[in-house]
């Protein structure tokens, strides 16, 4: 029995609870509960009307049963009866039941809403309080519909009691969170802001939460809250510890309110008014100073409350990211905490420093703590603290300390908790690539990763190392040698066999001169692992073997014997069997020349964002520290991005060779059967999927790769004079959101495009197909940039063969570099002789600014924060236009993604709207772009808003995107 039973104890309830507690087994408890439920049912159904007290008691018992974890499907009506009662005690229990067991029965909701309405109108503050609590607890849409208009009135009415104001503020906050569209902004908003000045600190506390949430979505409307919040904060931090009476908590004046005010200020950039700004800086300095003062109490509550305010102040300092002095002081303070005896403080210091590391002002200061953080990684006993240390090391990593940090992480990986191994592997892989000066170090690091934590090395990681080795010929010999050595280990991870198999298949010849790694030894080494591997790895090894046949004719017969063995030719797995059969056949019938062509070395991979990074982002969720860090680092652009500049000039790139797919890891071209080994973001497969058509010409004559279904009607043979650009605008616009397809077609000529872009670089393959059976002579395509365009866009092309045979196709590569933002498109002019006539035509080449978009994922909060920061009217461009195509949400989404920005889900409060974010990369600068598209189905209209830091960019992107819908 309880030691104290305050108020109106219900004896029947207490006895029931005791009974339950005395039950010896789960079965006994269930039996007792069922008995009680039957009893309550019969009481509720009985003829005898129950008095309020009994009803209350039974409803309470039901609540108790529910809280034990049992389902309750009745009693709501009785609860509604109770809350409509005039007795406070019954009303209270009725409301409690409804708040805990929310029910969506509409009839019931009508009754509840009715009772709430009466209580709100009762002018009895206790009843009003209960009603408001119930709305805040349930927070359903129906309640928002009924009360969202009424509550603001209660909140700002002059005669409302303070306690009711507090409840009304938070009640409104809850409704705004669930149904923002139902809470009307209006006159009341300015009066709510003035609650920050209220005498009653409880009212200020509740109101600040409301204002913060509203200000996040309507920054303009609540802008005046900044100066009010600063002055309120200033009064609190300078007050003596006794001034605020009961609002002082363990000698800390109003810590909750201080934290909330600091949070509110994080919705805005630093105040523009110098007086306000000065006052705020003073506040922040005072808070930092207080951290150095001796504690006023030994109680942990004192230090927690004080440090809660301190950490929030540091968050604000980081958010403003404008006062180097404060940032460095914050960093020093956190540095002290890194060695604090309280685990909680060490944890928070590590966490907070992660965000500091991304500020250019404090990045260096953060780096000075590297030894402490590494030490934390080794000595912290709590895995969640170690996890923070890993995050911080990742955040503080740059070229100067990458080797040390990667080494420490690898070291830690040996003993790391299983729960965080995969993440550490991803982080090591990213850092090793990003800061590799010497690619042998990179190769060593990844092989170490596989050795130490092979099971946690995802496909993205080992695909990536292969891509890099293939793209960098200076490291290929080293890679071959290193994998060969690593494979000597008696037990090596299957991922190592995959990497080893692939690399030796491509570059085994580079080490074959050494008798210790002769072709036969290489082959035997790989084949000794074969039988221990899974099917996809074996398939990969078979491809390696056929490449060996090409590289090392001297071991051809050995390999053929292996391929011919029953275990291969009659393998139960259809994929393996087919590979064995076809490779054996290929090795037998093809001449060395054909073999060499088919099995030519892999062409370099197109540059693209590391998919490892994407995976890490996905793992950590959008809007995390990592994300922020990426954006900031990209902006400051002093880092070694993952795109190697060397590849810009890689115009020597061979076209995806017909053999590419043959040796692909997954899609088996000769068989057309096997699905990729992994369906999840498998990179290599992805690389090829774009070029499926270009790879197709294994079958001769199928070079008409670009007969896309959306091909517009053929145009009449053009004999137009030069310089009139072909009016192919519609086709041009199609390319804004896609990279491949047919750009132009008439009876003679078809022009197809395939292009890829990465940051500020791109490469475009132009395919000219002669549709006739007659040769084109003097065929000269030229890419022309106007004088305006020339400084912004750097294009390099190679001349093509002046003769194009009938039915043939020639290809031209354009290397593209975006130097600064631009408006126009370059022109592709083509001249040739066909029969006796001279042909001259021009089309716009779809190289548009949005091609240099890199998508940026961010949380709703980040989005709106940035949105606000771009509120200068010159930064915004808006267009309202009629829909030209059916308004289909899925198509719209695809177009926004195709446009190049990230499509941010669940960011806009209205789910019908679309928002996107990304960064335009040019050589000289990077421009953050936010976009929002609001469809109006009824009117068949769209409103498109672009906000970027540059007016011309907003303008151009808006123009381009508006044409798409």
């Amino acid at each position, binding site marked *: 029995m*309880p*030691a104290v*039973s*305050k*108020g*109106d104890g219900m*004896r029947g309830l207490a*006895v029931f*609870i005791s009974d339950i507690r005395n039950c010896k087994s789960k079965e006994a408890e269930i039996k007792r509960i069922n008995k009680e439920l039957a009893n309550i049912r019969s009481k509720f159904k009985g003829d005898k009307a129950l*008095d*309020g007290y*009994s009803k209350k008691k039974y409803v*309470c018992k039901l609540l*108790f049963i529910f*809280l034990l*974890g049992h389902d309750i499907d009745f009693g709501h009506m009785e609860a509604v009866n109770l809350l409509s009662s005039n007795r*406070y*005690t*019954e009303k209270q229990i009725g409301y*409690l039941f409804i708040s805990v067991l929310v029910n969506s029965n509409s009839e019931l909701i009508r009754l509840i809403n009715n009772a709430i309405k009466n209580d709100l109108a009762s002018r009895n503050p*206790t009843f009003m309080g209960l009603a*408001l609590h119930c709305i805040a*607890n349930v*927070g359903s849409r129906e309640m928002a519909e009924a009360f969202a208009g009424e509550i603001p009135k209660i909140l700002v009415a002059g005669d409302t009691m303070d306690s009711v104001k*507090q*409840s009304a503020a*938070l*009640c409104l*906050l*809850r409704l705004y*969170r669930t149904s923002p569209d139902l809470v009307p902004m209006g006159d009341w908003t300015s009066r709510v802001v003035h609650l920050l000045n209220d005498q009653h*600190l*409880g009212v200020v*506390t*509740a109101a600040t*939460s409301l204002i913060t949430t509203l200000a996040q979505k309507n920054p303009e409307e609540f802008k005046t809250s900044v100066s009010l919040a600063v002055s309120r904060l200033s009064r609190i931090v300078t007050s003596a510890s006794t001034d605020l009476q*009961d*609002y002082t*908590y363990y000698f800390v004046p*109003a810590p*909750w*309110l201080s*934290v909330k005010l600091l*949070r509110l200020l*994080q919705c805005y950039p630093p105040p523009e008014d110098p007086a306000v700004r000065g006052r705020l800086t003073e506040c922040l300095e005072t808070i930092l100073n207080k951290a150095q003062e001796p504690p006023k109490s030994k109680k942990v509550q004192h230090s927690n*409350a004080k*440090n*809660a*305010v301190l*950490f*929030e102040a540091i*968050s604000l300092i980081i958010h403003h990211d404008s006062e180097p002095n404060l940032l460095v002081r914050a960093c020093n303070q956190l540095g002290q905490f890194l060695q604090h005896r309280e685990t*909680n403080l060490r*944890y928070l210091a590590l966490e907070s420093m992660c965000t500091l590391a991304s500020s250019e002002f404090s990045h260096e200061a953060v780096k000075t703590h590297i030894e402490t953080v590494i030490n934390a990684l080794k000595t912290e006993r*709590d895995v*969640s603290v170690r*996890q923070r240390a890993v995050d911080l090391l990742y955040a503080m990593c740059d070229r100067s300390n990458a080797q040390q940090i990667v080494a420490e992480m690898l070291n830690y990986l040996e003993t790391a908790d299983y729960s965080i191994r995969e993440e550490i592997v991803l982080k090591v892989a990213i850092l090793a690539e990003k800061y590799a000066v010497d690619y042998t170090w990179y190769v060593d690091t990844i092989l170490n990763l596989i050795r130490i934590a092979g099971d946690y090395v995802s496909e993205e990681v080992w695909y990536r190392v292969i891509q890099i080795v293939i793209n960098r010929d200076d490291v290929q010999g080293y890679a071959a040698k290193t994998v060969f050595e690593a494979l000597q280990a008696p037990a090596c991870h299957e991922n190592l066999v995959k990497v080893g198999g692939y690399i030796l298949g491509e570059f085994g010849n580079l080490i074959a001169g050494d008798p210790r790694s002769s072709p036969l030894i290489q082959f035997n080494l790989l084949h000794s692992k074969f039988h221990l591997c899974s099917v996809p790895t074996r398939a990969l090894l078979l491809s390696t073997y056929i490449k060996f046949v090409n590289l090392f004719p001297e071991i051809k017969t050995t390999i053929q014997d292996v391929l011919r063995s029953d275990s291969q030719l009659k393998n139960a797995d259809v994929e393996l069997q087919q590979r064995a059969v076809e490779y054996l056949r290929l090795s037998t019938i093809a001449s060395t020349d054909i073999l060499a062509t088919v099995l030519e070395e892999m062409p370099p991979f197109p540059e693209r964002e590391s998919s490892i990074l994407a995976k890490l982002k996905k793992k950590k*969720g959008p*809007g995390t520290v990592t994300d922020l860090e990426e954006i900031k680092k990209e902006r400051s652009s002093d880092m070694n991005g993952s795109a190697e500049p060397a590849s810009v000039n890689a115009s020597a790139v061979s076209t995806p060779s017909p053999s590419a797919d043959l040796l692909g890891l997954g899609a088996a071209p000769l068989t057309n059967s096997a699905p990729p080994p992994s369906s999840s973001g498998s990179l290599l497969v992805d690389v090829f999927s774009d070029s499926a058509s270009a790879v197709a010409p294994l079958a001769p004559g199928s070079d008409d790769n670009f007969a896309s279904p959306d091909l517009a009607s053929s145009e009449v043979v053009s004999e137009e004079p030069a310089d009139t650009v072909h009016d192919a605008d519609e086709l041009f616009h199609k390319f804004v959101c896609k990279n491949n397809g047919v750009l132009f077609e008439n009876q003679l000529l078809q022009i197809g495009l395939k292009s890829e872009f990465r940051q500020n670089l791109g490469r475009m393959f132009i395919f000219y197909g002669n549709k006739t059976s007659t040769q084109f002579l003097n065929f000269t395509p030229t890419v022309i940039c106007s004088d305006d365009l020339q400084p912004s866009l750097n294009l390099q092309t190679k001349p093509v063969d002046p003769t194009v045979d009938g039915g043939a196709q020639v290809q031209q590569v354009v290397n593209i570099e975006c130097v600064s933002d631009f408006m126009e498109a370059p022109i592709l002019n083509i001249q040739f002789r066909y029969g006796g006539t001279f042909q001259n035509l021009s089309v716009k080449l779809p190289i548009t600014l949005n091609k240099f978009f890199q998508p940026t994922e961010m*949380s709703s909060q980040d989005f709106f924060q940035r949105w606000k920061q771009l509120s200068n009217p010159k930064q915004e461009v808006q267009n309202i236009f009629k829909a030209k195509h059916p308004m289909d949400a899925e198509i719209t989404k695809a177009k926004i993604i195709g446009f190049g920005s990230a499509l941010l889900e669940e960011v806009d409060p209205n789910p019908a709207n679309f928002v996107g974010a990304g960064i335009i990369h040019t050589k000289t600068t990077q421009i953050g772009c936010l976009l929002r598209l609001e469809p109006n189905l009824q009117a068949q209209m769209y409103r498109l808003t672009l906000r970027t830091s540059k007016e011309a960019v907003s303008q151009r992107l808006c123009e381009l995107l508006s044409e798409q819908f």
Partner: protein
Amino acid sequence: MQFMLLFSRQGKLRLQKWYVPLSDKEKKKITRELVQTVLARKPKMCSFLEWRDLKIVYKRYASLYFCCAIEDQDNELITLEIIHRYVELLDKYFGSVCELDIIFNFEKAYFILDEFLLGGEVQETSKKNVLKAIEQADLLQEEAKTPRSVLEEIGLT
């Protein structure tokens, strides 16, 4: 704050308060998972942990764990003190509160929480003001007391 859970050392849920709409099934799943995670942690470990995309702040008082889930931008330390202030309120109201008080007077524990936190945000931090509100309500209850039957007095109905 997204929700608050009170549970015992044995993993029995004593109080649950949800500030975001979730289905009963989801609530049960979350509860099960979190109770397990928190109970598995050792005493000296830090009071915060990342869980899904939320931050969990928890503290043990005697046999009871108080556990709050907050969002990414929320302040961990102040949440720890929210827990402490709630414990103080319970303590003051019941007079050295123990787990049994919360079991037998669960409705009071809810009422006190509603006065202190609403919609997941701190509504009133003054201990005096919160308790004044609860005591006023108790007074109303006293006035409303109705005579009970003999059977009820001995707890038989």
